[in-house]
Structure formats: structure tokens, C-alpha cells
């Protein structure tokens, strides 16, 4: 059996008991991403707080259907970026993406990725990398939207979550 390198206990734990799942309000932007080859879907919302260099990820909420890898990745994403400064969250994102592209050749940095290191085995299964990245791509997309909105129309920070529901399409 080689498949245990893919299905680490950490991944199965997150899959069975996902952290922070469910869509919450208020939020600044939402993105809907699908994996067209398998039909996995995620709707992910981002709520920002703070100004300028102090912008942080106040909340990440999501609803999703998909395999254990994509579900666990969303749960780990929630843990890793929620409450982080935007800059730090982006660093974690970059690190996770690099790990997924590593073909198993990179030793993951546990300091940065925490439970995310369990996904190292995924990088050896090319068909599953997209599963692990689905929520991360949606998060990046939603965050970019939230920032765009931030610059355009966020003088005071008070946002009506209902106002910005456009999906990202595919």
C-alpha cells in the first residue's frame, strides 16, 4: 500500500471534522470555484479587517462538496489564514502552492504550514493536486476581490455582506 502517504491521518481528521465550515456574514467578497474534471465545488467568503499594512484576514468561511483532499485543504486553509495579516497569509499560500508543485521533492516547513505539511504526499499524485488547491485558489480570488472593493469603496470599513455576491465563475 502506497496510498497511506496520500491519506495522512491529519487529512482524514480534517475531512471528517472540518474547521470553520459554513458560510458566514458579514463578508467582503465571495468566490465560487469548481474543478471541472471532477465536479468538486467550493464557495468561499473572505472578510478583511484593518487598514493599509495592517489588513488582516478577519474570517474565511466556505461551503464545499468534494473529496477528502479538497475538503481537508479547505479546513486547513481556514486554520492557517484566519486572523493572519494579509502579508503572512499570502506567504502561507505561496508556501502551500510550492509544496503542491514540488513532486514530493521539498521538505515542507512545519513552522509555516502546520497541518498543511500533511499534504506533502499529494504532490506525488498529479491528478489530486487540483483538489488540494481548489480552496486556496478560491481564497486568493476572493481576497483579491475584497481588496479591490476595499480600495474602491471602503472608506469606513463597514460593509454589507449581501452587497457583493458575484461568483468568480470558472
Amino acid at each position, binding site marked *: *500500500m*502506497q*496510498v497511506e502517504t*496520500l*491519506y495522512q491521518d491529519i487529512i*482524514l481528521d480534517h475531512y471528517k471534522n472540518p474547521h470553520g465550515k459554513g458560510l458566514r456574514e458579514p463578508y467582503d467578497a465571495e468566490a465560487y470555484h469548481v474543478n471541472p*474534471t*471532477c*465536479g*468538486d*465545488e467550493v464557495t468561499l467568503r473572505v472578510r478583511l479587517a484593518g487598514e493599509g499594512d495592517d489588513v488582516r484576514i478577519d474570517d474565511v468561511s466556505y461551503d464545499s*462538496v*468534494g*473529496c*477528502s*483532499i479538497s*475538503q481537508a485543504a479547505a479546513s486547513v486553509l481556514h486554520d492557517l489564514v484566519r486572523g493572519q495579516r494579509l502579508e503572512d497569509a499570502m506567504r502561507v499560500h505561496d508556501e502551500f502552492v510550492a509544496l503542491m508543485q514540488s513532486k514530493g521533492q521539498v521538505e515542507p516547513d512545519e513552522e509555516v504550514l502546520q497541518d498543511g505539511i500533511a499534504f506533502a504526499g499529494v504532490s506525488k*499524485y498529479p491528478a*489530486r493536486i487540483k*483538489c488540494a488547491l481548489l480552496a486556496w485558489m478560491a481564497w486568493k480570488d476572493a481576497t483579491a476581490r475584497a481588496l479591490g472593493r476595499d480600495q474602491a469603496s471602503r472608506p469606513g470599513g463597514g460593509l454589507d455582506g449581501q452587497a457583493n455576491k458575484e461568483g468568480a465563475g470558472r
Partner: protein
Amino acid sequence: MSDGVARAGRAGLGLDVERIRKDFPILERVLPGGRQLIYLDSGATSQKPRQVLDAEREFYERHNAAVHRGAHRLAEEATELYESARAKVAAFVGADPGEVVFTKNATEAINLVAYGMSNAATSSVPGADRFRLGPGDEVVVTEMEHHANLVPWQMLCERTGATLRWFGLTDEGRLDLSTLEEMITERVKVVAVTHQSNVLGTVNPVDVITARAHAVGAFVVVDAAQSVPHQPVDFHRLGVDFLAFSGHKMLGPTGIGVLVGRRELLEALPPFLTGGSMIEVVRMEASTFAPPPQRFEAGVPNIAQAVGLAAAVDYLSEVGMEAVAEHERDLTAYALERLGATPGVRVVGPLTAEARGGAVSFVVDGVHPHDVGQVLDDLGIAVRVGHHCAWPIMRRYGVPATTRATFYLYNTRAEVDALVEGVEHVQRFFGVAPTATAGGAGGGRNTSGATR
């Protein structure tokens, strides 16, 4: 090749599968970790016997040249092989050679018809006006279509202003034809339907649909990608207008597909792809087109692949399509019985082998199909997971995706056993193995989620 093919009907017991398997080198493959390959994904693409590989190689080694051009010996031989491939394929599906158009695959064959129809709006091909569609006209499909027989019709409606309508499905996984008369009215110009569902396995009553469609003057386009490889199909007896299938799902190479069309319709249908080989006279101002089938084969075609497909047709003919169908019926009935008796497993599609082909889709409670497929792969078992290019079926039955096993002439009951044991292993691996009886027969399918 005759001594290389296992004849059907040995002692009346069906195929000599052990001999057939020897013709497929890939089935001997041992995967990393010492796993013996168990290939249950022929619905996606079939494996190829040596006879097909040899035919392709021999064409390239001895006869390779462009067809229908050039006066040299090789060009003549290549043209002869290509045209005899057309004749063999035609005979295999009960059509005339002139009714067989080689395409890239079934998808291109269906697009050829759909684009030919919208090109009819401005075409000078005599009789093309019979294909014209516009606002007020309707195209009817079904909810169980592969995307290849759905999206081209959506696009045709978009280009012409016609309206797309579709037959729904019953909870049992069959077409709901209770609305046949209301659905297929004088407004309908095209009815496009799959002969055999690639997900549910359902074999549709094409004759019933065709009778109604022809009564109102509609054309019938049949997606036969999953039927021609697995059961005897006779184009003329079926009475439909167009039939599309792919070579690679019937032991042939990739890159070769077939559109069969009634001669009088092909003669009136405007071209889809245009350029070399498909013309009659070309002037700077305008051109006229060759008669069918050349009108629909622009450019140098996939010659070696057509030759390979002819070898596949020879192989299947020698085994006998009745015998192939019977063998698959046995495997399908056995798989339905065993999966149906496995707690926590639900089959999506008809639960008996009646009017049903060898595609068995199922869900394992508590485990996503991707994870099912991954763990099965770890055991050497190749199945397909996902929406199988038929996303609307998933929505209809309220599942995100399914795991699908598909059978062919080289599969065995022992491989079905391995699949069932593999599924039980999956349940243990993910800690969802049901303890009591319950589950099983698939009656508990969620049928409320028709749309999202």
C-alpha cells in the same frame, strides 16, 4: 488473424476470455508495488489488441502516403486501405460505404451535424434548406446525454435562435418518455439521443423515439459511442438519420471516429470543416464541394487510425458482437448483484441487466468517488470517477459524482470480485464499513436534487 482471435460460442459458454486477453499486451501489465492491472475503464477508452497495433504499424512501415492524391504506388495502396477501412466499418454497422464519414471522434461527428445544420442558413448546397433552424424551432435532447451530445446542440440553438428542450429521467435511471407526444411536436427539427448511457448503462428505445420524430419530420441523431462497441448495431434497421461513434472505445486507435448519415441527408448537408480534399472546383471567388463522404473529410485524414479501426472491426466481427454483448450482460448482471448486496453501496442506474449495457456507476456512502477511485487504484483497479462528462445526470440523482466500472470482452467475473472486495477495502480504509445489513439495493437513492 483468424487463429489469433478467440471464437465465440465455445461449447456454448460464451467467449474464450483467457485467449482474448492474450491479444491485449497491456492486460499483462504489473503496476508499481506488484499490483496486477484490473482495467475496468473501457467506457472511457478500450485497450487495443495486437492485431490493431500491428495493422497501424504495418501501414506506416509499408504503405504510408497521403490518400486521394498522388499517382504513385504508395498513394494508391494507402487510398485502397483507407477506403476498404470505410467499407469494413460500414458493413460492421449496417451502412453503405458512402454513408460513412471518418472524423476525429464521436464528438467531432456530432459537431459536424450541428454545424452543418447552422451552415445551412447560408449554404448553396442543393437541398440544404431542409436543415435550416430558427426561432420557434426546437431541438430535443435528454438529461442523460454525454456533454458531447448536449453542448453542440446548446450551441446550435444559440447560433440559430432555436429552443433546446429535454426528456427527463425516471428514478430508475431510464428515459421518461411519458411526455413523448408533447415533447416531440411539429416544432421539433432535431432529436439527439444517446443509444446507451455512458453513466447509467441504460439502453434507450431509439426505435420508439425515431418513430415519433419521423412522424413530425424531425431528424434523429444518435450518440452510439457506447453502443457500437458493445452490441450489434444496424444503422439501416435502426432507421435513424445520423449515428456517431469513436474508434478508441471499440479496440481501435484514438484519433478516428465515425459519422454515419443517410445518403440523401449527407448529400444535402453543408460542410463543417473546409479546405483540401473536400472540394469539387475551386476558384478565387468561390468553390463547390465534393459529394459525401469526401465533403466532410477536409485535409489529410487519420489514415493509419482508420486502418487500425478496420482491424478492430475485423477482430470484433470474428469474436461476434452477439457474443460480446452476451458476455457483458453476464458481467453486468453479476456486478449489479454483488454491488447491490454490498451494504453502503448504491448503484446509480437500472438495477437489472435488462436493456442495459456494461457501465455500472455507484456511490459508496461516506466516501467521495475520488477517494474510492484512488484507493482502488492502489489495489491496481482502474475505474473512472467524477461526473463522466454527463454533469446533469449527477444533479438529477443528487450526487456530486460517481465511481464507474465499465466492462468489455476481456473482463472477467474474477475482476468483478476484485472490484467488490476493493470497495469493501475502501469502506474499511475510510472507517465507514456498515456493520448491519441495510443499504445495498439502491432503492434509497436521493431523487429530489434534480437541479441545483
